[in-house]
């Protein structure tokens, strides 16, 4: 009389093994296709009628902001490889700033208060005796007022940090927006997205996507993201401890 428990286990194991071996031969793993995966719904955008004025008003309002934080990042993709340049820090207009900068993996640091300019490069601090000119980012945006209003879309509101913002988007040739020619008189199709704070009506973010053609390399894709934050009455341009120590060493 065979043990029934034994029979059961053997049967189970044999059938499992049979499934595994037969399936193992015919086991076919496919790369997942889009139709098998749940897709995100595309962003809905509507034509905006009053958005252009809202953008211009926001730019106007930002003109009075003297102390602010800025994070500006530019990503360029050439032949499948991305290269990043970015700055992060605080500015007090007209020309005080504390900014860290990274270009393609190399780090730089600028500190410039009323009296001194310090610059770090390859991990070495130096005092510079010529001031670094800091562009007035608000003044540079005033060109928007001279442009003919573009066909504008409004996107769903976005949350920047914790503040809701209205989002407007338009497409244009970056050459005409910049008001300067590109090399070889090329056109640079671009898409601009402006984020205007819903409560304060300040301009808080600009996003730019564009495509370029580089001879011999094909399409180059550019993406810029500029965030403005920490709008305040007081300057945030202050020395860090590291800089303080470095400055003491620099003194003769």
């Amino acid at each position: 009389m065979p043990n029934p428990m034994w029979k059961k286990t053997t049967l189970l194991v044999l059938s499992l093994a049979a499934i595994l071996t037969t399936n193992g031969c015919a086991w076919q793993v496919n790369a997942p296709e889009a139709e098998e995966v749940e897709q995100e719904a595309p962003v809905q955008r509507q034509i905006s009628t009053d958005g252009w004025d809202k953008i211009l008003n926001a730019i106007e309002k930002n003109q009075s902001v003297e102390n602010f934080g800025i994070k500006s990042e530019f990503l360029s993709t050439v032949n499948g490889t991305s290269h990043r340049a970015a700055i992060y820090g605080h500015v007090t207009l007209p020309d005080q700033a504390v900014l860290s900068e990274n270009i393609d993996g190399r780090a730089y640091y600028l500190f410039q208060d009323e009296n001194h300019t310090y610059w770090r490069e390859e991990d070495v601090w130096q005092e510079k005796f010529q001031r670094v000119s800091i562009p007035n980012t608000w003044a540079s945006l005033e060109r928007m007022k001279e442009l003919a209003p573009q066909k504008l879309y409004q996107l769903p509101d976005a949350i920047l940090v914790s503040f809701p913002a209205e989002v407007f988007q338009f497409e244009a040739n970056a050459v005409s927006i910049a008001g300067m020619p590109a090399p070889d008189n090329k056109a640079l199709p671009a898409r601009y997205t402006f984020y205007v704070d819903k409560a304060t009506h300040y301009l808080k973010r600009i996003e730019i996507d564009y495509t370029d053609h580089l001879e011999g390399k094909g399409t180059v894709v550019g993406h810029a993201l500029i965030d403005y934050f920490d709008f305040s009455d007081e300057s945030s341009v202050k020395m860090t401890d590291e800089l303080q120590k470095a400055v003491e060493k620099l003194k003769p």
Partner: protein
Amino acid sequence: MKKTLTYLLLALYAVFLAALYQVVAIPLALDFSLLGLALLFTAGMLGYLAIPKVNRRMFALLSLLVLIASYGVDYIYSDALGWRFLEFPLLFAVLGWLAYSYGKIRFAYTLTVVLVLGLTQAFVPLNDMAFTSNLHVVYKSDVLDEHSLFPLYTIAKGDKGTLYTLGDLREDQEDEELGKRDPIKDEDLLEQNPPTLIERRKQELEDMYVLSFDPENHYAKKTVAYEAAHSGQAIPFDLAYQGLPYSASDWSADGEGNLKQTIRPVDDPTAVLYNLMEPLTLPVVMSERTDIVYKTSKANYLDLLDEQATRFDSDRKHTPYETFIGYGRLLPGAGEQPVYEANNELRVYDAKAGRDGQPIATLAGTFEEPMTPDLLLADINGDDQDELLLNTVPAKILRLQQDGTWKTLWISGKDSFRFEFVEPRDGEQPLIVANAPSLLRDQPARYLTGFTWQEQGTELVRDWRVFEENIVHPFAIDQDLWVAQIYNNQMFYVLRPFPYPVETLLTALYLLLVLGGYGYRLTQGRRNRHA
């Protein structure tokens, strides 16, 4: 005699289990997530139950010992040789004592396990097991640059299959001994003359040797002589523009006549800082900078080649508005059509008329899915007609129709999926090599995977997969001979696909062992009852 057999079997089992764990078990979990773990648990339990009851505890502990020892040995191998003499006895002592006191496993068994795994590690490192189960490493370079400018340097194939890339030939220390490096220490220079220190550091970062690897000479690493590059040994142009869009390349000879390449920013970092604060002009300014870098690098390259310049220029058919991508047999019986790329648009021209006529087909990109040169024109089903494999997000396969429209055959369900290259095979479907993410895990990590295209059902069917992350820029230099790099690691591999399905063999062996175990238990059970 029986004793020797026991030790031999134990040694074989140790290697088998360590390999099974690396090649089958870990990948299963990486690919199928919790489902994979459940499958592993089931398979493990089946194996456990296949062992006769009296031996179960001993066998399980022995298996555990093998797995622990395999990682211990792996750690030890990452240390210097001197340390290993200390660490191996220590590992043996600790594991041996644990195994003996807890499982009554003889010290001799532990010694066998540690020794055989140590020996295996010398040939196939544990970490590389999943990798080498599908690919044979023909050549593995050293780390070519300890202080590299970019996460990766381009590897380019030149004449006669020679590979070219950039790197430091000597270590800094050797340079000091040779008197090539300024003997003043960094710290002293920082106090005395900071600008000189900055210049020195910049130079160390930006100056590189052009290295060549000759397949005829088993890829021996060599510098290229400046004179050779100047008078004929054409180093590939691909090396020239890797500093895009901020740094241009230039070439010079060092004191000994070796070819040096310098990749240096075209303008001051404060200029870029300035640009980043003016959003409206940013695209145009960056377009200009990219253009300057490319043109400067190209001019310097032509200077280096000297009289070869004319040959180089006539090889190319680019204009400021269109870049030649390659030839594609995109329509049946219509010859090889030249394919160009304009700003965010692919253009296919007639094989005969070329660019004298209008494009026979175009394909425009969008801002979300731009039409970059990150694409392949390749025959995926062996019908002698090319398809278009696009590395957009998500990746796609398209086929050109007679009327000039494109038919989408396949769209990836995973955003991080990308096609790398396609290799035609004699009498077999072409091999499509891609970097594909895990099937179930929600992670962008990609693994090098070989697929074949199934026309019926339009599916990419997996042939094999290598469970090593960050294998990037693989390309074929010859039939069944590939080059690949590891991201953020200045080295490269020359690989050959391995013809044996190690994964399947190991799995089959495991199943056989389990079945054998049940068979043994069954016969033993009968014998016991009849006795």
